[in-house]
């Protein structure tokens, strides 16, 4: 990974927003600052995907509070690869905790110091890289799986489950010769050379949440 994630900062207080972007820029982060959740959501909608972003959200910014923005992000599917960090003021701890329970990375209480915020953001960047890599792999696996025909998928799943060609033929009510043909094709497309390697790949696909069922 050569490129680092951009920090999408959202705070309705101009001074806090300015100071924080200044600090983060000089600490080596790419920063984009937004005055409201609405602006942020509008922007990321038109950004190229996949978005390389870390969200830093102020909790208390009416009318659209940070936790509401977070809910939107979860709904839009960003939470899987984009860490979210909350900035919490007074009286919002319960909501911050609730947001963390919903999958946010963490929160910092204002006034924070760079001693607490910067390490957290570095961790977030690393996490984002990891999540992005995983997502990329999953994307690749999905691409490979999508390239298989329906019959090839059935055969691949049965073989990965440990069935012999003969058994597969019986189960699918086709001749063994055809099974061998589909199997060779699937091995080739998925870049594996043994049933064990196939099983590993299928497990990785499952963990990526790829839809494996063929019918």
């Amino acid at each position: 990974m050569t490129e680092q994630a951009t920090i999408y900062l959202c705070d309705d207080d101009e001074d806090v927003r300015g100071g924080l972007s200044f600090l983060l820029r000089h600490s080596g982060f790419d920063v984009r600052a937004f005055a409201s959740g609405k602006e942020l959501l509008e922007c990321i909608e038109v950004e190229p995907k996949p978005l390389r972003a870390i969200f830093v959200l102020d909790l208390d910014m009416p009318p659209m509070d940070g936790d509401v923005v977070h809910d939107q992000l979860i709904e839009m599917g960003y939470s899987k690869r984009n860490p979210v960090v909350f900035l919490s003021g007074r009286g919002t701890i319960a909501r911050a905790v609730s947001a963390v329970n919903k999958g946010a990375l963490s929160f910092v209480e204002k006034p924070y110091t760079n001693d607490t915020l910067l390490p957290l953001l570095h961790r977030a960047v690393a996490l984002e890289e990891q999540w992005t890599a995983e997502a990329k792999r999953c994307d690749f696996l999905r691409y490979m799986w999508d390239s298989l025909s329906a019959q090839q998928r059935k055969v691949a799943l049965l073989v990965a489950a440990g069935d012999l060609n003969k058994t597969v033929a019986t189960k699918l009510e086709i001749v063994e010769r055809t099974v061998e043909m589909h199997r060779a094709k699937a091995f080739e497309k998925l870049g594996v050379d043994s049933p064990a390697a196939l099983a590993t790949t299928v497990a990785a696909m499952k963990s990526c949440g790829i839809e494996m069922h063929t019918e």
Partner: protein
Amino acid sequence: MTVSTAPQPFQPTAPASWINRQLWLLPFLLAVFFVAMIAYWAEANDAQEQSAYQNTLMADIQSVELQLMGRQDIERTKLREVAPKLVGSPSVGDVALQSLPEVAAGMDRLWNRLVWIDADNQVIARAHREVLAQTASTDSLKIQSTGQAEHFVVPVTSIDGKPAGQLLARYEITDLLQSTDLAWLNRRYQVDFVSELGEVIATTESPIKVPRGSRYEKPLASFKDTTLRLTQFEAHASWRTNARTMALLGGLLLLGGAASQLLRREMVRVKRAVMASQTEAAWRQSMEDSALVGLRARDPDGRILYVNKTLCTMVGYSREELVGLIPPLPFWPPEAVDGMMARNMNTLAGESPAEGFETRWRHRDGHILDVMIFEAPLVNSHGVRIGWMGSIVDISERKALEEKERHHVEAMAQHARLNDMGLIASELAHELNQPLTSIASYSAGLEIALKKRLPDESDLLGAVDAVHRNAKKAGDIVNWIRRQSSRSESLRVACNLNVLVAESLKQRKRQIERNRIQMHLNLAPDLPMVTVDRIGVEQVIANLVRNAADALEAQNGVRSIWIDTRLSEDASTRNATVEVLVRDNGPGLQGRTIDMLCSTFYSTKTNGMGLGLGICRAIVESHGGRLSAGDAPTGGAEISFTIPVSQAIQEKEFQ
């Protein structure tokens, strides 16, 4: 009937007054008695009259008898005078006899036959007359039948004194009667002479004058076998037959009866009235005595005319001791007598405030009581003021409660003020957060940038570092304050918000009553407990009610405040929360948002110790809840806040 002063509400008076109750009969009885007396007197009078009359009658008859006998005597004498003449006369014969003047006169008068018989009953001579000349008077007797004759017999004596026979003169009774003057009798009686056969011989009967009275008969001694019968013309008038008397007496009885009837009706009416007034008096008495309000009536000089039991109990003096007293009164505290005399003069002058005034009295046992006195003029039926009626309410208890309440409220206010200071500090800390965060960020960024570009400018670097350090230090102070306030927040107890609603309504009770606001409580019965700063939340509710009441102040008509509590769910966290809504039917928010309403935070209202909505919001948020405001669908403002049910527990877990 006597009106007893002791209350005897429903009892007629004692049985001893049976006579009293029958008193109405008296006029009738008197009338009966009077009539009886008159009857008795009349009866006695009658009897006396009757006997007097009887006597008169007897005397009258006697007179008649005597009169008749007198006539007979005269005739007999006349006859006796004839006898000597016969003896001396030379020739005795009928002619000679008849020619005697005495005989002729006798014949004219009465006799119709005269016979001289000798001792051997041989007739010597006789004379007779056929018809007697009528000499009867007009109103004299009418002869009914004749033929009844009587004889006078006279012995004849010779010269030598030898008996020479007898001289018999015969006469008709009717002739005798006719020649007797009975006119004096005729006026009063019808006179009848009746023979022994019952045949009326002579009568004064006349068709003009019919006798009606009683009759009386007596056999006459002078005439054998003849009865004198007298019949009164006028019937003796017994009083009983006197219609006028009877009418008078009957009238008297009727009048007596009528008087009795009237009296009876009057007595019944009076009795009823007395009973009613007794009952009423008893009721009034028991009402006055059972009243919680002391009552006293005073004349225009301030003299006590009446006190009820309650007042007596209030001041510890008996009714007898109080009635008749004039100010200064014994239950006035000695140290305040001058002031009270002055006020008393005002009261008697009619300048007592209609809404009453408060004062202090001293009970006989020395304890002081606070009383509220309302004076009203006593006006008689002519509209003239005859004194003053005072109602006295013992407000000692109320005063004590008010005092207690005031202490409580003051303590609350003190507490709230302390709490406010904490909240203000906390709010300040929050407000300082943003600039400090900004400063810290800028200075940290500056430091990083400077280190990269001008690593040799230690002077500049030191300055930036100092700014950064100081920002950090300020941030630490702010955090310390926040920790302090969160420590005070941790002084929280589990309680039911419904209880806090009730508590805060007690705080605002006066305002609610004064402004005549109708409270409508709709409290969820199964509200879970929440862990809150009890006083803080109580102040929040009281403040919302106060704001609602203030908003209703200018409102005419019905003023209502609704308070609802319910279990709900926080929109963002999905946590269970308890929600309190305060709604009014006032003018509503008129476009103001919750932020505008809360911006009055720094200009807390000067009157009273109500918290601004900003502080309310701060308190609610310090509990992890939310305060929101809007217009109710029914009009009016609706302010609500939520308190998370398990907020405190979550916070603890996190820490």
